[in-house]
């Protein structure tokens, strides 16, 4: 097996990401995103059980038109491919659970589900996540995006102490 390569310099990665975002602005007139695609998957899954329920809900029904024929859905499929390519080139494709040494696998997965649920809720309330709101809106100097970004760091730093056993 190939040994894992080091991650690239963070400033270089930042410039690479920034140029990707700039390309989206120049070519499409819009930024990047991720969380709305998870919303579309939620609507798709809920729709398998009951289409009536989806149509009756004022929030879910906003996503039903062209549910998967959406710009961000294709972008996120690209993220999967790009992440896979980079991971493969660096020898980092590995089935594992990201965690610190002081927590069990089961404990970490419970945290992962709970954190995902909290973040999913927050992303819908804020109308975006770290990519669609903080990064995209940050570059266009959108007021709400900057307020959101500082709130994210505030919420995370305030919580970190209580979940330190998970990571350190």
């Amino acid at each position, binding site marked *: 097996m190939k040994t894992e390569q080091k991650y690239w310099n963070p400033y270089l990665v930042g410039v690479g990401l920034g140029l990707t975002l700039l390309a989206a602005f120049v070519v499409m007139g819009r930024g990047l995103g991720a969380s709305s695609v998870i919303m579309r998957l939620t609507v798709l899954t809920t729709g398998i059980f009951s289409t009536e329920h989806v149509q009756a809900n004022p929030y879910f029904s906003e996503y039903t038109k062209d549910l998967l024929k959406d710009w961000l859905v294709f972008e996120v499929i690209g993220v999967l491919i*790009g992440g896979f390519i980079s991971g493969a080139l660096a020898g980092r494709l590995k089935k594992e659970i990201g965690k610190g040494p002081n927590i069990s696998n089961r404990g970490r997965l419970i945290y992962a589900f709970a954190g995902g649920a909290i973040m999913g809720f927050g992303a819908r309330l804020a109308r975006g996540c770290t990519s669609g709101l903080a990064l995209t809106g940050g570059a*266009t100097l959108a007021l*709400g995006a900057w307020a959101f970004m500082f709130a994210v760091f505030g919420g995370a730093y305030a919580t970190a102490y209580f979940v330190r056993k998970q990571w350190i």
Partner: protein
Amino acid sequence: MAPFYKFGLFGDQTSLVIALLIGISFGFWLERGGFGYSRKLAMQFYFQDLTVLKVMFSAIITAMLGLMYLTLFGFLDISRVYINPTYMGAQVVGGLVLGVGFAIGGYCPGTSVVGVATGKIDAIVYLAGAMFGMLVFGELFPLLKNFYNSGFMGNATLPEFFNLPTGLIGFLVVVMAVGMFLGGEWLERKFRKDGV
């Protein structure tokens, strides 16, 4: 003249191909920085590894300066570029909630996709959790609707809000980012225990 799509240089079908290509680049760079691995992301919040801060602010200033110069040279019509609308109440509270979820879950939505691509089990479970949280949000939407729309300020931007020229705000953002980079390097030297 850019944005090319807004000026009708290509249609919707082509735009989906472009979405795929831009996504590949996005995913590639996220993985290169280590954003597919939750522990590396979470170490940001213990001052041991400030990669998140460095990558995020260097990406923002790169794209921001690009937009400013392309506008200055008359290549880009910035009025046709999407500006996220501001809903101050919902976005500040949503941001705090999202931050709590970040420290607990270890990913954000975009990075969890990269985690899934590189085989991280916790990223798959995180994504299932995110879908559950969004289901709950949708079910509670009738109750949350007023708050969801609170603090609406249109497409407000920092230059408008502070009534300062865009160039000056851009300069201040760069100064702030450089300050954060220097502070981040200092914190890492002080707190870093092991390489993640």
